Every structure is written in C-alpha cells, then in structure tokens.
C-alpha cells in the first residue's frame, strides 16, 4: 500500500478511543475481504490486507458472556461489584465492556440484546487518556 492511500486517522487503539470520546464506536472494514474489525488494527486479521476503511458500528449486539467482578483492580475499587460482558456487535466484531447498572447474574441472559452507551471521559493526567464506552441491556 502506498503512502498516499494511508487511512486517516490511522487504524489504531488511540484513534478508536478518540472516536469513543466523540460518542462513536468505530471499526475498520477490509476493502479486500469485507471483514469488519474492532478494535481496529492496521492489518486485516482475516486476509492480512492493509487496505482498510473506517466504518461506524450501530452500537447494538448480543450478549455472549459476562462476569461480575467482586475483587477489582485498585483503579476500579469504587465501582465493585460491577459486570463486564462480551458483546457480539451486529456487524460481527466482539467487544468487552462494563455493563451499567448490573450487579446480579439474574439481570442478564446470554443471547439478550445489548447496546452501547457513552459517558464523558474521566480526567486523566497520565497515559492513557482513553474514555470508556459501556454496555446496557437494550
């Protein structure tokens, strides 16, 4: 791929989270095999092509699995217990994320519809300054 065709912004983790700060869940689509990839990466994990374009995900999908974290890392201590789920987005990619407002297993059912929600980014002075996206039952 020539320099002129390089994707802007580049298909990186940093770009993904800049989009999240704008309330957008973005993936890259492989122009060769059509695979939609999130988190984005510079090379298609389906066919190894580097010819990619940005696409916006609708932000809806299906619950694949989940856990409820009772013993959290230090920086999540104030949130515990909290739920983290894996959601298969309707466009194909699977993403992990915290599920807002769920602390009991019977509040969720595998296969149920989920949607993405965004919250203002926490003020971080040091790397990484990434906002988070969250899930909630649709």
């Amino acid at each position: 791929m020539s320099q002129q065709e390089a994707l802007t912004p580049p298909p990186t983790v940093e770009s993904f989270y800049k989009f999240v700060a704008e309330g957008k869940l973005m993936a890259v689509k492989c122009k060769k095999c059509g695979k939609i990839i999130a988190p984005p990466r510079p090379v298609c994990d389906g066919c190894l092509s580097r010819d990619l374009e940005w696409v916006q995900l609708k932000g809806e999908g299906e619950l694949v699995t989940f856990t409820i974290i009772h013993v959290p890392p230090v920086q999540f201590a104030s949130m515990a217990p909290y739920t983290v789920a894996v959601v298969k987005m309707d466009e194909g990619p699977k993403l992990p994320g915290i599920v807002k407002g769920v602390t009991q297993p019977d509040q969720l059912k595998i296969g149920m519809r989920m949607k993405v929600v965004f919250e203002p980014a926490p003020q971080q002075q040091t790397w990484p300054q990434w906002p988070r996206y969250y899930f909630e039952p649709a």
Partner: protein
Amino acid sequence: MSGKPLAAIVSAGLSKFGRREGLYGRELFLEAAGEAFDRCPNLDPRRDIKGVFVGHMGESYEHQGHTGPTISDWLGLTPTQGFRFESACASSSAALRCAVMAIASGLLDIVLVGGVEKMTHRTTPEVTEYLAMASDFPFEQWHGLTFPGLFALMATAHMHKYGTTEEQLAMVAVKNHKNASMNPKAQFQKVITLEDALKSRVIAWPLKLFDCSPITDGASCAILVKPELAKKFTDTPIYIIGSGGATDRLGVYARDDITSLLSAKVASQEAYKMAGVEPKDIDVAEVHDCFTIAEVILYEDLGFCPKGYGGKFIEEGQTHIGGKIPVNTSGGLKAKGHPVGATGVAQVYEIYLQLTGQAGPRQVSGAEIALTHNMGGSGASAFVHIYRRGD
C-alpha cells in the same frame, strides 16, 4: 507406539512452594537447583552445563530483570550463556520447549532449565496488577477485567452452553487440595470439602476464592541432556517424546469460541503427533488449573474427554488418582501453588517423580506416559510436552 526421544531429563528439583519470607528469587532458584544437583552426582555443573534457560514472568515483583545471567551467576556458572524466557504463566515451559529445540538441534548437549517467581512480599493488588499485564491492556484491563474475570467469562459461557455447574468446578478444587495434602512441597496441605469451596467468597462470579490458584513463591529446575548421554547421569531417565507450542488471540473477547482453549488444542495435537501417542495413552497429566474452569476445559481440549463433557468427567472421578487419567497429582496450580514463572517446570518435576516411581502416597502405579500442559495468561500461549519413562 512412542516417538523418538527429543531430550532426556536426568534430574529435577523443586523449592518448597508457599510464602517464603526473606528469600530472594535467585536464592529460591538455588534451592531447586540444589535438589537437582544432589539427585545427579555424576553431573559436574561447571564442566557439563552449556546453557541456563530460565522462565520468569515479571521484573516488577523484585525489581529484577535480566534473569538469565542473574541465575547463571548465582549458580556459580558464569560465563555460561543464560536466557530468560517470558510467556506469562507459561514462561518456564517456553524455556523447556526452547531447551528441547537446543538439544534436538545438536547445538547444546546439556542444559539446565527452570523457572522462578517471588511474589508474596507484594500486596495482593500489586500482584493482581502485575499478572494482569499478560492480558490485553487497552480492551481487557481498561474495561475492568482481572484474571479471575477472564476465566469467569469462559466459565459463564461453558455453563450456559454445556450445563457445567459450580459444583463440578468446586470438585476440581477438592481433588487438587486432596492431592496437595500428599505433597510436602505444596503450598496448601489441607483437604477441603465441596461446601468449603462453594461457600467461599465470590471473586469474579461465577468463580469463588477456591476456584482460584494462590499467590506463591517458588522455583523449579530440571536437567536436560541429549538422549544418548542420559545413562551417563542416571539409570532412570525420562524422555521427552513430544513437544508442542501454540498461541491464541490475546483477548478472550476476540476468540471464536470462548468455551475452548485453541492454544491447548493446537499445541497438544502437535505433541501427540510427534510422540506417536493418543490422549487415551496418557497415564498421568499435569495441566494448567490456574482456575478450576481451566482444568475442566482442558480435559476437553487435550482430548481426555469429549467437548462439553469436562464437568461430568470430574464428577465421575475420572481424573482422581485411581481414575482413568489422574490429573494434577501434585495438587496443581490450585493447591501446590502458582509461582508463575516456575510453574511449567514444576509440572515437569511432578512428572519426573511419577515416571521414576518417587511420588510417594500420590504415586500413579505403573505410569509410563505423561503429559504437561502450561498456558500463558488466559491461554494466549500454551506449551504441551509428552514424556516416556526410560527403560
């Protein structure tokens, strides 16, 4: 039925596992190496050892990296070449596989392989943070996942898809604690009941405290030689006849099937093929039970039972000593302890004892063919080795 020996293990050593206050990792390593040297009086370490291969996950614990030369120095083997291998919790199995490659290539004929981690002097939140570095930072750690959380994602999915129960997971813990009670080097020496396990506090639902392996200090060591040299050092060598390695997607979320460990499947298929054996030929196995659900999934992905049957397999007692295929006779990571960098070669130590008839009350009678499976992180790396008792 068995493949050609790739390398011979002529001795092994293991430090006591547990909370080892006042010892530095390099000192723990000497405890393990000292046992291996004592068991092998014909070995002259300075004359014979051509390389030191050490598994070590994290420099954060002791503020000490550059582990290859560090351990070589403390062994008194300077200027021998020393290497540090890092593959998270599979670090010393990565060292083992590369030692096998070094010997099989003919480049080195005698290698000391081992692993070490000193962890308990750090607080639990610190250790949790260091271990988490083996998972995907921008998407797993950043969204609040811990290691128990990652395996809990697999457990929830496995329970949903196959009907595996929390009781069946607890049975893995009960078995491994029972085995550890017969292993004087294990961190935990007490048997537990199913009720103890089921009533323990929730760490990452559906996993509870007794579903999780502990934080441990420990070191492990084995002496590998080219097969033709084995009888110079011992009358009872064991041979490595199969070796496999594989990776999986770093993030659990990115995997096609969250109820399965692809790296275990691929690495074991390679090792079985090389060894010329099948899962039914394995007499005893040490597998990576960092969490109880991992052992259940591994029964399936290593081919000990059909996919989805792992829960029933433990419930039927098939993996107890005396069962169809005893698994984790040492007590496993769960109860022997899990000093991450040391774990892979600690599994080798148990197999060395089992195949040379030195495992005492936990001996599997007549064991001839054995398997170890060791994984890094949530299974993004795995190494499988198959062993045969020497004649």
